[in-house]
């Protein structure tokens, strides 16, 4: 009997065991293997003396920096990613160092229209203000539907210890805050970015010390002004190797070869091979790039423009670039304005110093007309001047004829570009053949007027500090002149 009970007990135990499943806590189900947490970067954040973004595109950006404000070792790498608090070790990218001590990191293979965070020094998380947003894929609109561009001209007064550029900057920021908070996608500088001689030190004072929060999040796209060539702005040489300054010491001297003695060319890393869209130019002195549905061209009216053969080569490149361009909007920037009666006079060459004004007007504006450029921005003249929607004017001011050269309204007067006189990209001629020219050399100083002011091609002129904000979406280009209090002082619209 005992044997039978024992057998039954054993059988029961066996049955119970065989019937047991996951509900039986004595035998837990096997767990999936635990993936190790991805390693995050392990460096330390560095606060460089200068930090800026270059050549931002839909899948790439260059992060460039120099110095360390804390006096410690400079950073030699960045980490980046889409999670601000978790920059992965796998993202760590070492910098190359240029002859002028700038560290550069090219990040590629990025996703379009995406926010990335980064740490200079390779920390595991990004500090505020260390981010960038890649551009949409070519021709596409940003996710918010709008591209915003902020332009300043002749803002380099910080190099002379003056604060006006900061006032202009604050005016722009005030405008941004009061108009919905959308910051610029692009920061464009129209030349004379660092008075008075464009030295490296003056760039530090006038550019990197004035716009640090903007430069660390927004790609900067400059053009060459006359003060970028030293000589207190009166060089007529077409060669950057003729860069020359008065004195040294306080303001710094020419940069060492082999890059170039011209600090502008060493500080900025600009496209030469169409890296950000547009055609390869073979030189940083002039270039093009795309952002969303906007094509932007920076011409060199200071150097290449001063030699006939080099100017012709730049013109050929421009023509090809415009020929290949199918963007909705086309913007051209260069320093010397074709039409001005401010502190410079577009009817005078001043012995040759302002010869580029004539050459750009006579040789380049016809190409802008032919190939559908929408707007041209320049600096040089310390004033804000905005033209009508014009074409075909290559002569002196007194040859301008609004009835021939300007888009007219319903009563035969030059249209203003405002309200029901907004411009249409396809003009009354049935084609895209007119351009609005703006002089925005008032980003740091306003000085004087020329004989014959105002230029008859201009609708609006004002001798006051300010900058320009352009908003572009699929169908509208909306340009505004912003004063130092954030007020809109002039505006025009082009529709398509």
């Amino acid at each position, binding site marked *: 009997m005992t044997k039978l009970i024992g057998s039954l007990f054993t059988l029961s135990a066996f049955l119970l065991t065989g019937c047991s499943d996951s509900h039986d806590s004595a035998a837990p189900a096997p767990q999936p293997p635990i993936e190790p947490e991805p390693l995050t970067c392990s460096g330390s954040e560095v606060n460089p003396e200068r930090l800026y973004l270059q050549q931002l595109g839909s899948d790439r950006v260059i992060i460039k920096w120099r110095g360390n404000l804390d006096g410690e070792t400079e950073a030699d790498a960045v980490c980046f990613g889409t999670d601000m608090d978790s920059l992965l070790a796998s993202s760590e990218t070492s910098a190359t160092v240029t002859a002028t001590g700038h560290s550069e990191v090219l990040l590629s293979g990025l996703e379009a229209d995406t926010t990335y965070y980064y740490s200079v020094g390779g920390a595991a998380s990004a500090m505020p203000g260390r981010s960038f947003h890649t551009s949409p894929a070519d021709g596409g609109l940003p996710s918010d539907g709008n591209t915003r561009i902020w332009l300043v001209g002749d803002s380099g007064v910080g190099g002379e210890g003056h604060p006006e550029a900061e006032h202009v900057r604050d005016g722009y920021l005030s405008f941004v805050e009061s108009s919905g908070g959308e910051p610029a996608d692009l920061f464009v500088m129209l030349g004379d970015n660092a008075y008075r001689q464009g030295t490296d030190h003056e760039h530090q004072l006038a550019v990197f010390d004035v716009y640090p929060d903007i430069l660390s999040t927004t790609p900067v796209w400059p053009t060459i002004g006359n003060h970028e060539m030293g*000589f*207190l*702005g*009166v*060089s*007529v*040489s*077409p*060669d950057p*190797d003729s860069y*020359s300054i*008065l004195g040294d010491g306080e303001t710094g001297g020419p940069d060492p070869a*082999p*890059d170039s003695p011209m600090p502008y060319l060493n500080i900025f890393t600009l496209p*030469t*091979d169409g890296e950000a869209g547009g*055609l*390869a*130019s073979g*030189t940083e*002195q002039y270039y093009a790039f795309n952002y969303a549905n906007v094509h932007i061209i920076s011409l060199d009216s200071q150097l*290449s423009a001063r030699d006939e053969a*080099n*100017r*012709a*080569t*730049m013109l*050929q*490149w421009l023509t*090809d670039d415009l*020929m*290949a361009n199918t963007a909705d909007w086309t913007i051209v920037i260069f320093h010397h304005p074709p039409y001005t009666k401010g502190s410079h006079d577009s009817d005078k060459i*001043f*012995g*040759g*110093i*302002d010869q580029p004004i004539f050459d750009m007007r006579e040789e380049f504006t016809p190409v802008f*007309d*032919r*190939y*559908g450029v929408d707007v041209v921005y320049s600096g040089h003249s*310390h004033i804000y001047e905005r033209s009508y929607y014009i074409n075909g004017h290559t002569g002196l001011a007194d040859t301008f004829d609004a009835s021939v050269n300007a888009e007219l309204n319903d009563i035969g*007067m*030059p249209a203003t570009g405002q309200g029901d006189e907004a411009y249409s990209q*396809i003009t009354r001629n049935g*084609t895209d053949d007119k351009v609005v020219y703006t002089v925005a050399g008032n980003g740091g100083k*306003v*000085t*004087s007027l*020329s*004989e014959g*002011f*105002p230029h008859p091609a201009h*609708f*609006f*002129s*004002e*001798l*006051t*500090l300010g900058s320009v904000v352009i908003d572009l979406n699929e169908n509208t280009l909306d340009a505004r002149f912003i004063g130092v209090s954030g007020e809109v002082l002039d505006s025009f619209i082009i529709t398509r």
Partner: protein
Amino acid sequence: MGATFRVVPGACATAACALFLLLLIPAPNLMAHPGVEDRIHLLSEDIVASPNNQYLYVQRGLAYSNNAQPQLALADIKTAETLGDPLDVAFARGILLYRAGDFTAARVYFDRYLQAHPRHLASLEYRARMLRDAGVNAAALADFQQIFALKATPDPGYYISAARIMVALPEYGIDGAIALLDKRMDQVGVLSSLQRYAIELETDRQHYDAAITRMATLDKALRATPQWQVEVAQLHMQAGQPEQARGLLEQADSRLRALRSNTARVELQRTIQRLLQELGPIPEPIKAHDPEAG
């Protein structure tokens, strides 16, 4: 901050307004570049403080020259020559003479300076351009080639200048010019400005197939344009290849219709129609002989 002054069309009809405008114009500055006076003033102050500083006189001389004041410029350069080694002033003297159009005299000074400083790029560039402009081709070419050897990124226009010179020199000719352009493009990739000059040279010597091959190397974005198709079509026509030309012209015509109109495209449309007319109607296919047709 400067005056705030707004202009609205049709304003300023009163004498008072006009007078106000006139008062804003700084009369003494009418003829002078806004920056050069500052530069000359600063240099003059420095010269007063350091009257035997050769460098300051050179700088002020160049400033006067930049402002089209050649007599004052020359006076400063001559003074500079007495304050130190004249060789150190030779570059500046050469610039003044170059700007005055006296290329022969300018060359003497540039040569002297470059003999002492053969790698001084600024001088080389001035002399190269001066010799080019004076038609002293062999010497200009030598200078351009030296620039290319010393400098990583010369202005692309200098390659065009050098290539043009080579075309004019029998020992180089078109072959040499094209080789120079190709060498540069091997270094940096195809540049449309350089390749277009090479295409022009190939076309000039009726090497149309070579020109067409080069057209095919231009940037992808350029090759997608109807303008490119028309240019290649024109080369085919010159090469006696009408059917290839016709096909390209028809494609260009079709592409143009999808693009936003601008003046260049309107003109291109006219060019396409003209070229198609030149080509004439599509020839009838030749029917094969049918022996049973009688």
